[in-house]
Structures are given as structure tokens and as C-alpha cells.
């Protein structure tokens, strides 16, 4: 009997980049609401494999988040007690 190791690798549907799907969405460093979807609750930027962004939009998102952090619209990190 074969070990079921290969089977255990769960198949996940490929996520589609939200910004590619909807071209009306703009990435802007002033728009913290949108950017908020792409950070963890500790304020870290979500990796692409979680958020499902395409490479281009992930770069834009990253830059926008870093700008927002610079001007204190977003935190660098949220330290929980």
C-alpha cells in the first residue's frame, strides 16, 4: 500500500489578484482601508501566497504600505501585550 503522503497535499484553488480582477481598484498609499486588507493584525505585510496578489500588484501594495507607514497612517508593528 502506498503511503497517502501525496494525497494529503491539499489542493487549493488558485487565488485571483483582486486588482487584476477589478481594474477600478486603485492602489494608493492614502487609502488605508484597502491597504488594511493586506497586512496582518500585527501590521506585517501579507505574503503573496496568502493574499493572492499578482507580482505587479504586490509590489505596488508593498510600496503603498511602506509609504503609509512612513507618514504614520499605518503602524510599523502592533505589539500586543
Amino acid at each position, binding site marked *: 500500500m502506498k503511503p497517502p503522503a501525496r494525497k494529503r497535499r491539499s489542493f487549493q484553488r488558485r487565488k485571483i489578484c483582486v486588482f487584476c480582477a477589478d481594474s477600478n481598484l*486603485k492602489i494608493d498609499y492614502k*487609502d*488605508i482601508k484597502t491597504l488594511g486588507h493586506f497586512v496582518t493584525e500585527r*501590521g506585517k505585510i501579507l505574503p503573496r501566497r496568502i493574499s493572492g496578489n499578482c507580482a505587479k500588484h504586490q509590489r505596488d501594495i508593498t510600496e503603498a504600505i511602506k509609504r503609509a507607514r*512612513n*507618514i*504614520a*497612517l499605518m*503602524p*510599523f508593528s502592533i505589539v500586543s501585550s
Partner: protein
Amino acid sequence: MLFRARRMGYRTHKEERELRRYETIFVTHPDLTEEDHSTLLEKIRSLSATGNGDILKIDDWGIKKLGYEIGKSSRGHFFLMDYLAAPHLVRELERNLRLNDRVLKFMTVKVGDDLAPETAKALKEVRPAEKVNPAGEPSPAGEVPKKDEPKKIPAEGGEGR
């Protein structure tokens, strides 16, 4: 030669003429009065006027919570300024913001690259058109409602991006 001139702080002839579109966000101390703000804005306006820049709009976002504390203050008064300027004017504006201890933080982003003189002129002229919402989202509940500057000049376009 050009690089050397830049490094030594001289403005090159080309730099002097080119207008670019920038936006500067600056955060002031939340306890400032209305007069403090108007003197600050007046200063910025006069700098821009002498530097041959053109302010398209200045938005007052009101007091917002900061992402992190800056100098023991966890709130700040945000302003967004959208303008056309040559690089030397941006340098001058930033120098002044840096010297001003009422300004907690500032950041300038280039929105549009070298504008051709015609487009720059067109941008200046379309200004008195319709009122445009700030690019920033409407401030969430619990914050001071956004109010525009009394002297606010509406810009023509929304986002430059």
C-alpha cells in the same frame, strides 16, 4: 558636469524650468490652534509663490490617530497638498517643514513626471472647475469631520496614479 553641479547645490538650467506634480502630506501637532495652521499654510503658499510653484489644492484631513507615536503624541493633524513645482521648490518646502517644530512628519511623493509646459498650464487653468474630493478616504467615525480650507482651490483631476 551636471552631476557635479547638482552635488554642489547649484540648480541646473533644466531643473529650473521643469514642473512636476507632487503631493506632500504633512502632520502637525494636534494641539495647534486655527491661527497656527493658517500661518503655516500662509508660509507654504508664499514659498510656493516665490518658487514659481502652483498649489492645486490643500486638503485638511483633520485630526487622525497615528499609526505610531511621534514625539509622545498619538494623534496628528493631517494635511494633503497637491501642487506643481520644480525640484528646487520641493527642497525648499521640505527644508521649511523640517525646521518647523510644529510639523511632526512630512512626506513628498512625485505624482506626475516632467510636465510639458502646455499640460502644466492647462492644469492651472482647469482649477476653478468642479470640487474634488480628497484622494484620502472619508475619515472614519470618531474623528473630526473633514473640512476644506477656506481658501481651498479645487483641482481638476482626482488621482494622478
